[in-house]
């Protein structure tokens, strides 16, 4: 059993998918199916590195924010009506959180590089959170497809960008999105996504991508490509078709953008095909 749980594919993919699927099935009808994201991510963290917060490194700050995000998401969904102002505040908070995560690293760098890296990462995470909440939160299939693209895109790019740890964490987000989509596709009924699903996914995915940029070797233009994934989830889809066709169509769009980001990272890493 231990051997199985030590396998990277189980730690980052299979186990998080199973955990997310259980949560989506059990809590989906209670409008809390979005908690599948945090279930998957926590499973991955538990199996890969465990929960430890001292010293508070950048990676541990990301885990901490990922744990806080669904709480804020539930509050945003159930205690407040979604407004543009609320979404803007959450996006700005996500940008500020990005700077908090990477501040000790940025302080060690030249001011110009620190401003470019920190500013770029903060804008990217703020964009991912803001746009995802505003444009995808009310559309569970599009939200799930965006999550699939972000998770797979960030995960595989991170593996190529020299961090298998961030790769597994990213892929666990993709597994969560897949587990969130699957019951909808098979059952033909939509779950609620909202901020409960979208905030942890966009924030954690964005922070992992930023971490791979700042702490590993993700090229900046791959981060830029990853930021287009939520936009791809807004492309026209066959709205009157069965849910599974909609999910496949939108996921194909988000995964295509993710594939561009992965290809750019592969090229920057000097990878050779064949």
């Amino acid at each position: 059993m231990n051997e199985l749980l030590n396998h990277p594919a189980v730690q980052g993919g299979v186990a998080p998918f199973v955990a997310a699927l259980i949560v989506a099935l059990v809590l989906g009808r209670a409008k809390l199916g979005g908690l599948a994201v945090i279930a998957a991510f926590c499973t991955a963290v538990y199996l890969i590195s465990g929960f430890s917060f001292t010293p508070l490194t950048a990676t541990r700050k990301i885990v901490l924010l990922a744990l806080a995000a669904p709480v804020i998401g539930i509050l945003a969904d159930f205690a407040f009506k979604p407004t543009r102002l609320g979404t803007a505040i959450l996006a700005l908070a996500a940008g500020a959180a990005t700077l908090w995560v990477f501040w000790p690293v940025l302080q060690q760098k030249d001011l110009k590089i620190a401003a470019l890296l920190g500013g770029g990462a903060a804008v990217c995470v703020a964009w991912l959170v803001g746009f995802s909440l505003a444009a995808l939160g009310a559309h569970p299939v599009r939200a799930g497809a965006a999550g699939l693209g972000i998770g797979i895109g960030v995960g595989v790019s991170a593996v190529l960008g020299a961090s298998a740890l961030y790769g597994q964490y990213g892929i666990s987000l993709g597994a969560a999105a897949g587990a969130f989509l699957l019951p909808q596709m098979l059952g033909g009924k939509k779950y609620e996504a909202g901020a409960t699903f979208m905030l942890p996914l966009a924030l954690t995915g964005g922070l992992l991508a930023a971490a791979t940029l700042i702490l590993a070797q993700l090229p900046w233009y791959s981060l830029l490509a990853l930021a287009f994934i939520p936009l791809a989830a807004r492309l026209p889809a066959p709205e009157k078709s069965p849910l599974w066709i909609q999910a496949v169509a939108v996921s194909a769009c988000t995964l295509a953008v993710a594939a561009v980001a992965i290809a750019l990272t592969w090229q920057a890493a000097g990878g050779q095909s064949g």
Partner: protein
Amino acid sequence: MYRLTVALLAVALPLSAVAAPENYTIDPFHSYPNFEVSHLGMSNMRGQFTKTTGKFSIDRAAKTGTLEITVQTASITTGDGDKAGRPRSRDEHLRSPDFFNVAEFPTMTYKTTSVKFNGDNPGTIEGNLTLLGATKPLTLHVENWKCGPNPASKKEMCGGNAGGSFKRSDFGMKYGVPNVGDEIKLWIEIEGYKD
């Protein structure tokens, strides 16, 4: 008066010479931390850090000493620095947040808390290793300690090998355990010139 002065000097000079701790600066070209870690439980992979600075002192009369070493973690090498068609080399992976996280923690340090002598030479060094922002005790056992003039430059120097082991997971470096072993065997070859 002359006899008294000579007598006082005869007593005081050797005492002061013996009692004073001797300070040494580490020679970065002959001081390398080396490590060994199990890979998949099959082979033991070895590597080293090529950029090390620091200082040490020895007080032979008091049988005490100090050692401070700072290692640039980005200088890690395991002999696999070439991507060779892969997206990353093993050394690049070791520099990533999965292992040494060199962008966030560019240095690791070792500082003594006490030195126990074995005869006239340092035998056991108790100290703290700071790695990935975590500080934990680490004991090093000294072998082959020798002091004397450098045969070429005639500068006074000391050198030896110190070794110990620790669990990397104690410092939060948990990625890949147990496939990449948890226990790290560490050896530091140290040479330093008298200040």
